[in-house]
């Protein structure tokens, strides 16, 4: 069982979480200064008990390896986890995550990262044949549940989560995000409501390439948790947001639902709307609600969800949390407040408020290859 050390002031101000996301559809990379600037406009939406970022495209040199970010409360925990990793993974490279101590972030766990791939002759093969992704998921669950004082907070390829207790702009300085480049960024400013503010509890929540930042409360947490546990997900982090990451992993990676359909499971139309649909559509939505009723998210939420093919921002079905989106050339921005977008993109081509339950989806464009003898589209 994971022990939560909480040395942080739990005094509460009236506020709500804030989130931001920036994606370049052509995979042009930017450093972390824009996302830091955008989320810092939403400073007053959090209370310093959690800030974090996810970046995609930052580990180009190790793009084929799983990048594990692990936080340790003590060195024995590090020795134990490393023993497990050495037994089961080929460790190509490992190093402390570069940090810069500031007066604002001084109390932190030991942060280390590993670029690894599962061994082909690892022990679990005696009992079952798991794909690499499945084995990584099992390993993350195992470490987070059974290794006291250790917590894997990032495990994807060519992406990473950087998070902790503090305001997001201070967390950005702490991890030196201005020196990191990526083609997609998400950010979160936390105002913990029902669960403690601790380093592992900051957003984003990630598993493999999935990352989630979330503003809201998942009141269906109990149902979602029991449902996920049937599929051997272990929910050890004491926060509702975790379920969203695992539901998406289950629906998209394991059950192979298209992303658009998986999102419909999270925020499905009400039955009175389904009743008015016709034919195939009605049948599809009815089936989804029946099969995946336990994966439905109830309660207010706005989420930004990053994965290897793109980014999604979405509200709950009756829009109980704010969300604004804007586009400018190949960039798409999403945020809790328009001001956050304007801080980094003063005159977007388009700016709008997405409707309840209707996702803003951006997928990376495949590189266009010029045709022989002429230019494309001519």
């Amino acid at each position, binding site marked *: 069982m994971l022990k939560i050390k909480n040395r942080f002031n739990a005094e509460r101000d009236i506020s709500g979480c804030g989130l931001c996301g920036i994606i370049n559809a052509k995979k042009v990379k930017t450093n972390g200064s824009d996302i830091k600037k955008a989320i810092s406009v939403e400073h*007053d939406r959090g209370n310093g008990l959690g800030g974090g970022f996810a970046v995609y495209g930052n580990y180009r040199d190790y793009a084929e390896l799983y990048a594990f970010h692990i936080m340790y409360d003590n060195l024995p925990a590090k020795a134990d986890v490393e023993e497990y990793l050495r037994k089961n993974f080929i460790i190509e490279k490992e190093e402390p995550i570069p940090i810069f101590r500031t007066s604002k972030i001084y109390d932190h766990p030991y942060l280390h990262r590993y670029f690894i791939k599962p061994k082909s002759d690892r022990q679990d093969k005696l009992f079952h044949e798991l794909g690499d992704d499945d084995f990584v998921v099992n390993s993350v669950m195992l470490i987070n549940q059974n290794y006291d004082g250790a917590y894997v907070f990032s495990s994807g390829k060519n992406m990473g989560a950087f998070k902790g207790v503090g305001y997001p702009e201070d967390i950005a300085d702490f991890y030196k995000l201005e020196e990191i480049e990526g083609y997609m960024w998400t950010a979160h400013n936390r105002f913990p409501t029902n669960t403690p503010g601790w380093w592992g509890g900051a957003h984003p929540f990630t598993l493999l390439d999935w990352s989630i930042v979330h503003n809201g409360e998942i009141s269906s947490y109990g149902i979602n948790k029991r449902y996920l546990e049937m599929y051997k997900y272990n929910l050890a982090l004491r926060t509702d947001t975790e379920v969203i990451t695992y539901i998406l992993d289950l629906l998209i990676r394991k059950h192979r639902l298209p992303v658009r359909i998986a999102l419909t499971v999270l925020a499905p139309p009400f039955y009175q709307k389904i009743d008015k649909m016709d034919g195939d559509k009605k049948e599809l939505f009815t089936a989804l609600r029946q099969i995946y009723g336990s994966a439905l998210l109830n309660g207010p939420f706005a989420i930004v969800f990053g994965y290897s093919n793109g980014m999604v921002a979405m509200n709950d079905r009756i*829009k109980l949390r704010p969300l604004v989106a804007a586009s400018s050339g190949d960039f798409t921005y999403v945020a809790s407040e*328009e001001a956050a977008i304007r801080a980094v993109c003063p005159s977007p081509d388009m700016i709008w*408020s997405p409707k309840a339950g209707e996702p803003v989806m951006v997928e990376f464009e495949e590189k266009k290859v010029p045709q022989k003898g002429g230019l494309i589209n001519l």
Partner: protein
Amino acid sequence: MITIDAAGMHYKELNRLIREGIANGVKKFFLENVNGQYYIGDGIKGDDVVININGIPGNDLGAFMDGPTLIVNNNAQDNIGNTMNAGKIIIKGDAGDVVGYGMRGGRIYILGNAGYRVGIHMKGYNEQLPVIIIGGKIGSFFAEYMAGGVIVLLGLGLEDYDELDSDYFASGMHGGTIYLRKKIDFSKYSKEAELYEADEKDMDFLKKYLTDYADSFNIQAEEIYKKPFYKIVPSSARPYAHLYTSA
């Protein structure tokens, strides 16, 4: 008259400067480079105070405001005019969610669209008559639990009007009046309110506000009157009187 450059300024400092200015007799303010500062104009008094805002004001613009006029030359965020008591807020772009929550007096004019939950819990009493006029379209839960006051929904420039009415339109409405320029089958939204054609008395009442609205945005008043007005009023002041008891 004073000009405040709000670039990078925290809302506490910005609002302190505004309050200080009002206390010192300043009547006209120009706020430049506003971006996301919360609570601008909250609780301030003074019928002759006018605050011009360039940039995007943050949430809770003009909450509890009691007299002054706020002019926003861009879009504005959520919770505009929360529990506002008197004065005027003019938005020359779009407004976010929850415009005029619990509003009990004054006027809010929006040139563009407004988000979800416009006028929720809006109320009026005797001469206290809050008025919201929206030029574009609106999100769901429009006028939810409306208890008083007036909301006018113009849908200017919307040809088919499809997006003018939305889910849960006026659900729980039990006071006040909604005017709109579209005949809708209201029974599909709410059993608590009814749709009528606006009569002469209604149009007389509206004239003052619509003229003021048109002047605020330099639009032709004739444009507004091109289509007939309809009104929605609650069928009962106490729709749930017998929810838990027999009649």
